[in-house]
């Protein structure tokens, strides 16, 4: 009985976190893009446009969720929920603060890598069931893209697993008590961090890798036929996925909730400990989200062949070489 109540509370917490993330991240994206393009961004609803995303949500809620006549109705309506469920499952092993984690399973990182590749099924399902050539093309591109970029993303995560010697999220965080892996792991950790950022940008289907949507070529790719709340679910899933991959990146490379410590500077370290661990976690995560938004509003979209070239000819060989290097470092004990 207690377990069930716990589960329900957890579910409510996750759903409200999703809603908050959707509102905050959409507004953040619009403001960041506006500032990068020397515009003002949303500034009508509320002070400085604060309630713009709230107003958009109300609009999407009252819109009609149309299902096209030629669509496969069951799969068409199922796909947005699969996208959301995948995002929800990925929330489980993330440590939001000190001792604040839903499920600290001993293969946490592997779990994340495995579950995140299910999201392609939602996209393929949406593209196939829409009975629309643009949707199908977008879905197929997304499939090729996610299957390729999983590799280098996984290898980038693996470098830190090699250094830590554990797949458990709490172990990885605890190993960074005396310094984050991006500082402790020398150059290989930095290379892995850059590759990780590129790979997760591609995995979440965001520009410059947004071939699955590609407004200018495929109208909206896999969610062309979606409207109303079903579209909103896809939209929300995209932003929640961005949050999750950034949270994973922050956990693995930047120490999760671990405060910033420098060697033996006792006073400085104590000062840093006064900042709550949740603020450290969310600060790092939003820093990474900002970097991914920065990518989006700077770089032009890649062509499909360029996309696959980048993965198979550059990222994959580099990350393979990198993992050799990091194994050498781990065996010789050269890291701090």
């Amino acid at each position: 009985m207690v377990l069930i109540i716990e589960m329900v509370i957890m579910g409510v917490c996750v759903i409200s976190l999703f809603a908050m993330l959707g509102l905050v991240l959409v507004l953040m994206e619009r403001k960041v893009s506006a500032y990068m393009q020397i515009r003002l961004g949303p500034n009508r609803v509320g002070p400085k446009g604060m309630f713009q995303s709230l107003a958009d949500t109300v609009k999407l809620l009252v819109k009609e969720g149309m299902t096209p006549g030629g669509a496969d109705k069951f799969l068409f309506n199922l796909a947005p929920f699969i996208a959301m469920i995948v995002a929800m499952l990925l929330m489980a092993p993330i440590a939001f603060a000190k001792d604040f984690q839903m499920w600290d399973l001993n293969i946490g990182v592997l779990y994340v890598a495995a579950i995140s590749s299910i999201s392609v099924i939602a996209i393929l399902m949406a593209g196939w069931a829409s009975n629309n050539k643009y949707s199908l093309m977008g879905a197929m591109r997304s499939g090729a893209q996610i299957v390729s970029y999983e590799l280098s993303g996984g290898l980038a995560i693996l470098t830190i697993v090699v250094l830590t010697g554990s797949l458990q999220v709490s172990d990885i965080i605890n190993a960074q008590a005396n310094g984050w892996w991006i500082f402790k792991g020398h150059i290989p950790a930095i290379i892995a961090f850059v590759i990780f950022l590129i790979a997760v940008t591609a995995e979440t289907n965001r520009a410059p890798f947004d071939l699955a949507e590609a407004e200018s070529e495929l109208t909206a790719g896999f969610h062309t036929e979606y409207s109303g709340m079903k579209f909103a679910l896809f939209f929300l899933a995209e932003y929640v996925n961005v949050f999750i991959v950034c949270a994973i990146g922050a956990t693995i490379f930047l120490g999760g909730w671990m405060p910033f410590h420098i060697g033996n500077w006792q006073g400085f370290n104590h000062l840093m400990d006064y900042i709550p661990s949740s603020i450290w976690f969310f600060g790092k995560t939003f820093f990474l989200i900002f970097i991914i938004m920065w990518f989006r509003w700077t770089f032009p979209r890649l062509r499909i062949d360029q996309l696959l070239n980048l993965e198979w000819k550059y990222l994959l060989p580099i990350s393979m070489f990198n993992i050799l290097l990091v194994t050498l470092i781990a065996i010789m004990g050269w890291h701090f």
Partner: protein
Amino acid sequence: MFLKNYISEIYQAVSSLLKGMRRTGYYFTHHKEIITQQYPDNKEALVFPERFRGEVVMPHDEKNEHRCTGCTACELACPNGTIKVITKFDITPEGKKKKAIDTLVYHLELCTMCNLCIEACPSDAIKMAQTFEHSVFDRNSLTKILNNPGSKIMEGVE
């Protein structure tokens, strides 16, 4: 040799991407100059470029005279039938018949502002105006007659 090219390619790619990110990062951190027009708020102070194309108008002078000879060059130049010139024949004092316009009908709803009619006009009778708030409730009011009622052609325009 291959490896050298490979590494230099990566180096060039990373450095050019970083250059782009530095540019947008500069814009992000120096948020003073706004290049967009804050439209409904600055309605009075709106300044348009000289060649902005809002709609086709026919300028008249203070004696209610225009420069249109009724040659229909604009009608022929228009790619989508926006302009229709209805001509009539005036009788000159010498008793000769002379071609002139009765009405010059302009369908704003069809116009793509391509400027071809203005280029085609041999007597500079029409030009592009800078007005742009064209939305109306009735479609019929988008069909405009460009020459004023009772206007006639200017002296000396052939």
